[in-house]
């Protein structure tokens, strides 16, 4: 009896309490992500659902018409097709720019660079990822715009090409870092075995490391796509913000995110327009969620392989 009491008192020292507190903190921290995601989902659904079930909403119009005229006095229309196509075209072009750049950079850093070059490049790439998006937008507006007008002789330089290149440059550093991680996760024994059989550096990289890391690389690209879909400020500034179904990279477009950012601050809470913007939010949420989920599935596969 006496012995166990002493032991118990002995255990509840300051360290014991600190240990307990940290354990609770870590648990709350870990759990908060789940709570926040659910909270956000419930919030946007609550704000947007009134529109989805109301008279104004028409599924065919929403996905099939480019006519986004929520503030018209006579006949407000809520066609999101041009916005969806706008976001998709900008993201698509961004990936055309970002995928070769980021995979090339990742292969160089992981397979070819050594020593200080490697460390320096890794730091610089991560620094590049930290540039705020409004700065990228500014570059699009003030540098790319006149450059595109000059180079291609088009009337205006705020278009799919401009925002696609800007977005590609924004997404590339993150994709590089993730792709490099995927390549690093390939066991060195693979490379050593290939080299032992007389393979060159080039052959090791392209025939051994790349195929072994392919799931991780796909995940890196998918997360880049997700980044492109969700990006707002840079696209708002560089795309021209014009409701338009683009037929060439020199057409101006308008993105889903940019529409929400430009219009939400100015609508009366609870109006049809307000709820329609939240419906766009639900659409964005669902798409980014699906993309991220797919990326996660690929990462899991690569871990098992």
């Amino acid at each position, binding site marked *: 009896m006496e012995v166990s009491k002493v032991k118990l008192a002995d255990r509840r020292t300051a360290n014991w309490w600190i240990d307990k507190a940290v354990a609770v903190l870590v648990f709350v921290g870990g759990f908060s*992500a789940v709570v926040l*995601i659910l909270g*956000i989902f419930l*919030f*946007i659904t609550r*704000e947007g659902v009134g529109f989805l079930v109301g008279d104004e909403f028409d599924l065919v119009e929403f996905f099939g018409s*480019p*006519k986004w*005229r929520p*503030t*018209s*006095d*006579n006949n407000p229309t809520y066609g999101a097709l*041009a916005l969806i196509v706008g976001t998709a075209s900008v993201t698509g072009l961004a990936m055309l720019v970002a995928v070769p750049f980021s995979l090339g950079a990742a292969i160089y850093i992981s397979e070819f660079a050594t020593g200080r070059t490697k460390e320096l490049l890794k730091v610089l790439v991560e620094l590049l990822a930290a540039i705020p998006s409004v700065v990228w937008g500014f570059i699009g507006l003030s540098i790319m*715009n006149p450059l595109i007008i000059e180079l291609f*002789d*088009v*009337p*205006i330089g*705020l278009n799919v090409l401009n925002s696609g290149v800007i977005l590609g440059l924004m997404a590339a550093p*993150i994709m590089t*870092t*993730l792709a490099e*991680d995927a390549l*690093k*996760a390939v066991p060195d024994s693979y490379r050593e075995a290939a080299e032992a059989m007389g393979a060159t550096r080039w052959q090791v990289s392209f025939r051994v490391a790349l195929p072994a890391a392919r799931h*991780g690389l796909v995940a890196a690209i998918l*997360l880049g796509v*997700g*980044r492109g879909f*969700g990006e*707002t400020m840079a696209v708002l500034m560089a795309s*021209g*913000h*014009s*409701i*338009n179904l683009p037929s060439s990279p020199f057409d*101006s477009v*308008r993105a889903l*995110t940019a529409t*929400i950012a*430009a*219009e*939400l*601050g*100015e*609508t*009366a*809470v609870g*109006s049809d327009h307000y709820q329609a913007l*939240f419906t766009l939010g639900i659409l*964005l*949420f669902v798409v*980014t969620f699906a993309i*991220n989920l797919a*990326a*996660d599935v690929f*990462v899991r596969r*690569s*871990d098992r392989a």
Partner: protein
Amino acid sequence: MTMKRSSHLFHLHLGLVFAILLGSGCARSDRDAGGKDGAAVASKSSRVVLQNKGSDTLVNVAQAWADAYRDVKPGVAVAVTGGGSGTGISALLNGTVDIANSSRAMKEREMEMARSKGIEPIEHVAGFDALAVYLHPGNPLAEMSIEQLKAIYGEGGSLERWSQLGVEVPGCSSDEIVRISRQNNSGTYAYFKKTVLGKQGEYKLGSRDMHGSKDVVELVAATPCAIGYSGLAYANDHIKMPCIKNGTEAACVAPSVETAIDRSYPIARPLFLYTSGQPTGALKEYLDWILSDVGQCLILKKGYAPVKPAADCA
């Protein structure tokens, strides 16, 4: 390692996407609770803060009024924010401002919404503005008619190329008319639509919708093919303003303070200040001061027409 990083990014990511949504949504409901009646907030030192928000066209004038009023009544501070007429009016409906600046009259729908929330908006005309049409300085076009503007901006309009107007614009080899417009909550957007495109008119899709009067002017100045519209006060040396005629027979009138005062300019519009109910106390004093000679001279200095043309501004 790979997995850790990507799941971390995954959460960060969703956060990023919806930070905007949450941000505006939450901030607004917080302020809703604060000042439901939009009443002037008196702090402990009895300093009165008037919240003033809305039209981008009026924001420079409103700021000038606020700055000058600090010397008139040191106990009253006026906080001015821009963002567009729609922003100001919805803020008035949401009860977060004392004065909403607007470059258009309130719509019937907004009036109904206000009444349903127990707010009776009172309209005060603070001045007049000539809505100027802006062209690149290299554009040889010197006069335009309302009909031409309608055919350029309006849905179903036939004008797509500068050559259809009989001009060749230097530096614009594509000949395309690049339409610069405003975001759909702007008072300038709504006024231009009502006056130029007509009551049933809609804008042609595909215009570049800028988020402020200044952005319109800057983009037109940088784009040879462009045409834009904004308040006269945003004019500078890097753009050109054609004179406007209403009908082919009518005289062509250049936008200016004088032509806005005598209403000969066809797209001149009143500028409104809205309050929630009849203003009282500090708010009433401020509005009276705006309509006094001192306040009206300030609006003239900023490039708009005062309500009373007689004001003698030394």
